[in-house]
């Protein structure tokens, strides 16, 4: 089953770095799997844990939050808050028994199209053996 399984990923990208970085991947015509749907937010610091859980509840197999490199946040310190929150989310996922590998945080600058591409490729690869996420999924 896992062989044909294509995970669905929701990616919260901050507008200033990661979304711009993913734009650069496009401009450079890099290729990565289409499993990821980007949602551009103002800053990684605006990603509430509720967004992450909501995505899992709606049936996402993986969630990515990507922001500017620590210290480079367009809003000075949003990504520091994100980083702290994300550590808690990971623990909480472990606690409730959902593989915490399903959730990822990355730092991608506006110049790092290649890095974004690699992150998506790797994430898809890591999610495949885990199979569909059912634990938090609300039956629709």
């Amino acid at each position, binding site marked *: 089953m896992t062989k044909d399984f294509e995970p669905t990923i929701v990616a919260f990208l901050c507008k200033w770095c990661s979304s711009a970085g*993913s734009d650069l991947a496009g401009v450079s015509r890099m*290729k990565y799997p289409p499993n990821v*749907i980007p949602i551009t937010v*103002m800053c990684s610091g605006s990603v509430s844990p509720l967004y992450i859980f909501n995505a899992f509840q*709606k049936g996402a197999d993986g969630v990515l939050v990507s922001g500017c490199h620590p210290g480079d946040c367009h*809003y000075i310190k949003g990504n520091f808050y994100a980083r702290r929150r994300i550590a808690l989310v990971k623990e909480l996922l472990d606690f409730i028994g959902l593989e915490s590998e399903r959730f990822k945080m990355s730092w991608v600058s506006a*110049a790092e199209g290649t890095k974004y591409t690699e992150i998506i490729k790797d994430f898809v690869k890591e999610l495949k053996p885990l199979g569909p996420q059912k634990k938090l999924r609300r039956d629709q």
Partner: protein
Amino acid sequence: MKKRIGVFVCHCGINIAGTVDVDKAAKKLAEHQDVEHSVDYVYMCSDPGQNMIKEAIKEKKLDSIVVSCCSPTLHESTFRKAAKEAGINEFQCEIANIREQCSWVHKDKEKATEKAEKITKSAVERVAKNESLEPIGFPVTSRALVIGGGIAGIQAALDIADSGYEVILVEREPSIGGHMIQLSETFPTLDCSQCILTPKMVEVSKHPNIKLMTYSEVQEISGYVGNFNVKILKKPTYVDPDACTLCDDCTEACPVVVPNEFDLGLTGRKAIYIPFPQAIPATFTLDIKNCPGLLPIACGKCADVCEPDAIDYDMEPEVVEEKVGAIVVATGFEQYDKEKMKEYGYGKYPDVLNGLQFERLLSASGPTQGKVLRPSDHKEPKEVVFIQCVGSRDPELHCSYCSKICCMYTAKHAMLYKHHVPDGQAYIFYIDIRSGGKNYEEFVQRTTEEDGVVYLRGKVSKIFEENNKITVWGVDTLTGKEIEINADMVVLAMALTPSKNSQELAKKLKLSTDKDGFLAEAHPKLRPVESITSGMFLAGAAQAPKDIPEVVAQASGAAAKAISILSQEQLFHSPMVAEVNETLCTGCGMCIDVCPYEALSLEQGKAEVNRVLCEGCGTCSATCLRAAVKVKNITPGQIFEMIDASVGG
């Protein structure tokens, strides 16, 4: 209330339509309950495309639209304007990025189409809950800050000041002039560098609109476009410039000799010094790092001999606060770290010089008054080897980029060397000759035809000292022959790197840098002098290596951009700011603690937003436990709908 949404899917020629079935996507979106109208078109951004949108808005009575096209960084403003022209609020237009984030990165048409549909649907869900908003106006401080007093900063400061705005020009060193003041003559005209720069330096010092702050550093910046607050550290020079008569008695009395930075260590200077005779401001600086101590017991000789009593050991560092509306960053370059170039014997053999040192040797104001002499024994070198691309174009070991100016200045070095030593021989090792620029190619030709400079295509493999000569081993890749030259002097065209501390400054200013540490422009083609932060502009080699005319052009460009801000009475700020729901707010104050802009405060037990200070980052909304604060038009409610659309629920 149910909205009447229009969806417009762009083909972008085949850029999108090549990978996404645009027709299918438009039809799919038409099924959405809030979508009244959904079409595709070859170029939405074209005039007919925009007209089509405007007509549809009127005819179908649309109250909001989604354009599915390229990144919002490109055409969001185009389509928002079109929406406004058709009579709907500009914030009722959202962009679904199906090009950079979809069609360009995928190959499988079916999957890409599915993804494009989801991205578009997500934008539809968002716009369905968008509010109509009006930009927030705020006043502008019409003064500018220019950081860096090299030719870039000087030009930018003069241009802004000439337009009638006040400028604060901050320079880290004791004098303005940057690297250009160190140069001998400039290619391709052989203008004397000091002769063309010093008039500009004098103009800066005399300009009524320029406040010059040398020996100063930007310490902290806060605020936003139009209203930046800057803290500038004025380091103590221990000399009162108004009292100093430039008599020079202090330097004679000073017992300390250290390498002179202006001559790149080819000469020495005292701990109290003037960097060079034409320095602006014309005054001495006591370099505290090398001074034996400010207490009269430690030394005190300079103060003893200073007749006008200009030396003040009690001078303290001072922090000056200034308000400005726009900032030009022109922090320049430096040569590649010599520690990394040991293989060429730089720093080991006194007669292996870098390009700037050779400039000093050629300069009439240099350590040898313009005579080319070997630092080791002061003899005239009869054979000189110039090596290009030292550290440049070497992705494995050094810098991957081309430093751009070295081909030209090496040709100039060889030519000027021949003018000084007509019976000498100059060799240039090169990889390629890059002489793009007005009259540049002709200049290079002149070096070979008139001055008999020998160009050798190839890399140098080894340099070592032997019998008072510097032996250079290399290969001429055109003939395939190994070459050995017993030279008297070797000059290395070192790669250019961003100036030290520029990384630190970039952090303070929130400017991004590229992989090599140069300041990143907002768009490589179309916004080359703007940074990603609005109100901050880039000029000169801090952005990338470039030659003087390019630096001057870019500096004038940056100045014009700054003026376009300073000349506004009001600027407008995105109305996508935080908003507090007073019923839900309990006044816990958590949002106030996390706000990076101090835009939130507690008023009568409830959080309140200052709309001008708020940048809309949303950190508050992710922090609030009661969902009492949200950013307009990107609320948690909207995000949940967007997630729903993305996951396909």
